[in-house]
């Protein structure tokens, strides 16, 4: 599971504020629009609002979950058909029907998503494409759904004795719906869920190690995205008065995709702006092209779509949002160069007391992690062979050995990303071998990575807040509806800042994590792991790249954590540092544990001495890369 190449990098957390400005601006424009536009332009606007909702859902899916759907129209159609059937056959009111329609669509999305979301990237895109076509075919085969003619005679909505039958009225009816949709979407993006998914896009393995259940969240966002499509579908059904299998056709899915991409994937207001741009272009080209090319009939406007879609992907992958942020940045730069906080020289507090002791932690000495007969074979090579280890609460265990001894592989099997060939791993009573990293995290353990897995698009604070994922609870719905989530968000932020202060990272909290020097990025990873308040912490070469002073600070920190009751397992190259720090040391060579004991026992073990003689630490790096964490996963 290599670090996934991103389709489209999500917006950096720093630019999210642009969303609020965007939404506000959009709100004003949408209200003014019908007052100034001609009827034919408003008519275009109605379609833009309807399609914009579906595109917004798609944009969320792409921006948050990093997944592309080419079958968004399928959910659009399910929503529209359900609405049509309920209104025309069973005399439901429009509002009640649309609630049911959205529920039906979300159920369908869940059923479709459970198998399909196990696929990734282009496979998912193509499978959803298939889904869209299947919906269209089934609809045209179903007599109940009116076969190819579909369902017609869906009346314009009537509320409070007002019939919304002109384009102006329908537009104004839709504006609040779209704005609410935008606000909900923004809340989700800003929420715990949005943060976790952003982290998944940056480093899936790191996010999972912090307890993020990637699959579950992806399914949730997929279902949410379908819900947007179905709201659009119900609005479409009423406006057009007819729903037929074309509502699920591939070109419509492409149109949604174009809108999302044009507006800027992941920016919530972008999809709506994109929808106006695309619909405007659609209408304009329909009129323009027949003037330029005599005799042109049919969907000639597609030429503009094709060129636009291609050109954006090549020249402006961030869509209109990218254009907008670039312009703003230029303006801001002219106004005066801003400088980020430096804060490089923050001192760790000299305090020596126990850290992060908390209620309910296992008493020191109780067995926490039990590894039995852990084995991994890659083809003919046995990387780890029958590895046994027991770690008790409140002790520091070091895992050392020459390069290529299988330390990181053992780590990866214990923490989840690598499935062992044989053996068991029990963490606090839960069997975790072969399970995903988030299961390990849920059992109270997490890890850091030898080759850093920092969430590159997030700030230092944002990185650490992801670590609080399991210590907070708000779900998608709560996040969308703001209130309970908002309070929890404040608590999460406060505790993350507290932790950063503790590690001396307080001054860097609002900088992008990738802008920090290497050593401090390691500290960010540790802070992120600590935010989980784990009972067991696995550290993969935490000292690498740190200065002498930083190493001493880190060692002091680890001792304080031990005093707080935490168990720590570390893989480390700096043997002297390890022997000074650890309570017990395990030595691996060629995948076999050749020694286990106190630092003193190990120091004088003849097998260990033999193993360490004749090893050239210089060619360590090349081997380390091959043997390193996530890059070496299947």
């Amino acid at each position, binding site marked *: 599971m290599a670090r996934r190449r991103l389709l489209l990098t999500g917006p950096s957390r720093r630019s999210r*504020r642009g969303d*609020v*400005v965007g*939404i*506000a601006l959009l*709100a*004003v424009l*949408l*209200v003014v629009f*019908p*007052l100034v536009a001609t*009827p*034919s332009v408003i*008519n275009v606007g109605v379609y833009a609002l309807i399609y914009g909702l579906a595109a917004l859902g798609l944009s969320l899916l792409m921006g948050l979950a990093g997944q592309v759907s080419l079958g968004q129209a399928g959910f659009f159609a399910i929503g529209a058909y359900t609405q049509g059937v309920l209104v025309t056959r069973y005399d439901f009111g429009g509002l009640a029907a649309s609630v049911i329609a959205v529920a039906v669509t979300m159920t369908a999305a869940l059923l479709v998503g459970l198998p399909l979301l196990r696929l990734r990237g282009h496979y998912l895109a193509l499978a959803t494409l298939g889904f869209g076509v299947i919906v269209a075919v089934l609809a*045209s085969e179903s007599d109940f759904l009116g*076969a*190819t*003619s*579909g369902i*017609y*005679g*869906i*009346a*314009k909505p009537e509320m409070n004795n*007002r*019939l*919304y*039958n*002109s*384009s*102006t*009225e329908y537009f*104004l*009816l839709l*504006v*609040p719906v779209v*704005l*609410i949709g935008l*606000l909900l979407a*923004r*809340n989700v993006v*800003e929420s715990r869920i949005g943060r976790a998914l952003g982290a998944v896009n940056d480093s899936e393995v790191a996010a999972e190690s912090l307890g993020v259940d990637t699959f579950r969240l992806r399914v949730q966002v997929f279902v949410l995205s379908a819900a947007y499509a179905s709201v659009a579908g119900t609005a479409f059904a009423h*406006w*057009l*008065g*007819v*729903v*037929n299998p*074309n*509502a699920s056709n591939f070109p419509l899915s492409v149109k949604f995709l174009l809108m999302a991409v044009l507006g800027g994937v992941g920016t919530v207001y972008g999809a709506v702006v994109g929808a106006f741009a695309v619909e405007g272009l659609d209408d304009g080209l329909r009129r323009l092209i027949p003037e330029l090319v005599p005799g042109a*009939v*049919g*969907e000639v406007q597609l030429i503009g779509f094709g060129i636009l879609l291609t050109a954006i992907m090549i020249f402006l992958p961030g869509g209109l949002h990218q254009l907008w942020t670039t312009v703003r940045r230029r303006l801001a730069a002219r106004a005066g160069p801003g400088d980020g906080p430096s804060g490089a020289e923050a001192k760790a507090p000299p305090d020596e007391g126990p850290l992060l002791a908390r209620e309910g932690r296992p008493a020191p000495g109780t067995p926490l992690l039990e590894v039995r007969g852990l084995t991994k074979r890659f083809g003919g090579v046995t990387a780890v062979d029958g590895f046994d280890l027991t770690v008790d609460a409140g002790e520091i265990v070091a895992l050392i050995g020459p390069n290529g001894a299988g330390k990181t592989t053992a780590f990866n099997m214990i923490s989840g990303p690598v499935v062992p060939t044989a053996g068991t791993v029990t963490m606090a009573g839960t069997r975790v071998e072969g399970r995903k990293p988030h299961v390990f995290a849920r059992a109270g353990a997490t890890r850091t990575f030898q080759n850093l897995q920092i969430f590159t698009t997030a700030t230092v604070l944002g990185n650490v807040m992801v670590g609080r994922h399991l210590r907070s609870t708000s779900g998608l719905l709560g996040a969308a509806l*703001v209130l309970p989530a*908002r309070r929890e968000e*404040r608590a999460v932020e406060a505790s993350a800042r507290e932790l950063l202060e503790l590690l001396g990272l307080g001054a860097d909290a609002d900088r992008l994590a990738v802008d920090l020097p290497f050593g401090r990025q390691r500290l960010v990873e540790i802070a992120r792991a600590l935010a989980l308040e784990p009972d067991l912490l696995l550290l993969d070469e935490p000292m690498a790249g740190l200065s002498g002073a930083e190493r001493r600070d880190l060692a002091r920190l680890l001792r304080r954590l031990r005093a707080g009751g935490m168990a720590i397992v570390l893989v480390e190259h700096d043997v002297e540092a390890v022997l000074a720090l650890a309570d017990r040391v395990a030595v691996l060579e060629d995948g076999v544990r050749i020694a286990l004991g106190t630092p003193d026992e190990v120091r004088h073990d003849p097998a260990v001495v033999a193993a360490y003689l004749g090893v050239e630490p210089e060619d360590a790096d090349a081997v380390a890369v091959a043997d390193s964490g996530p890059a070496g996963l299947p």
Partner: protein
Amino acid sequence: MRRTAPARAAALLAALTLGLAACAESESGGGGGGGGAADESGPIKIGAVLDITGAGASLGVPERQALELLASQLQEEGGIDGREVELIIEDNQSTEDGAAKAINKLVNEDEVDLVLGASRTGPSLAMRPVAESNQIPMISLAANQAIVDGSEWVFKTAQNDRVVIERMIDYMADQGHTTIGLARDASGFGEGVQEMFDEIGAAEGISVVAAEKFAPDATDFTAQMVNLRNAAADINVIWGIPPAAGLAQQAYVQLGIAAPVMQSHGIGNQVFLDTAGDSAEGLVAPLGRLVVADQLPEDDPQADVINEFVEAYTAEYDQGPSTFAGHAYDGWQLAIDALREVGTDKQAVRDHLEGLEDVVGISGTFTMSPDDHSGLTKEALVLVTVENGAWKLLPDQGTGG
């Protein structure tokens, strides 16, 4: 914390929008079309929604040509009582949603006085509710009777599929056939056809024993024809429009099905003859008199109208009109006649259309009533075959003719 302020602002804006929206709504009053008093100044607007592209293009294109021709003729004559008549044509891309979109635009945006179209059944059915709810007269050019059944505002000029099927059943009874194999268009044009054959055929002991469907844009008919061959009915019916109907005819002959074949009234154009090629020889179809204009007896009441139209159309476009052009002609003439007689008051136009009696058109002689918004009987159709690549009036018109 920092994020809440802008969020609150946005929420406020949303609330504001809701309020504003409510205000704007109450100001804009009734809005929309409706059957209110007609505007008696400015041009009279006639909207047309046609299948110009897509599966129905072979119908919609000649219809557009006919309408454009007639509109320019009217223009030269000086319009109706000095008022210009503006024709606005929209393409529905042969789709139901395209048709609904188009009629919504014509009604809301262009505020037309009357709507013609669509070319095929499905799109016409999609347009019907819009016409009804906006109370605007609509004249469809398509066949399926469902378009006008129980309708107040919708009329049509193509022969009902019911009268077509009556004519076909008459012929089958004459020939002594009792079992039918049917391959029908899967879209609106073919919907309900099987049931109607059974219903009308019941009296003669004729019934459908095998039914297959094909999409209007299908190109491969092997599966359908294999199944028809197996059914071994006395006679087979292919019910579709070109080019699909022509390709199905080809497959029928290629797979060597021995039973005779009938086609529907959906094939009355050159595109069918072109796509079916040699395989069309000998088929029988009930069509309007237009395709055999040159073979009509001189005393035929429609002869004058048809010949005049054929002449004008051929002079303009260098090719003869199809039956679909004829449906458009009829639709236009009925509309203009009503507008000329009663002006643009929509209710009056509707009432006038419903009261039409013995109006001679291309597709037949129209007599409308509150129960019949189609106005044609099976006498509007003649049985036609194909001989040497051209339409030929069947000498024996059977009991129906």
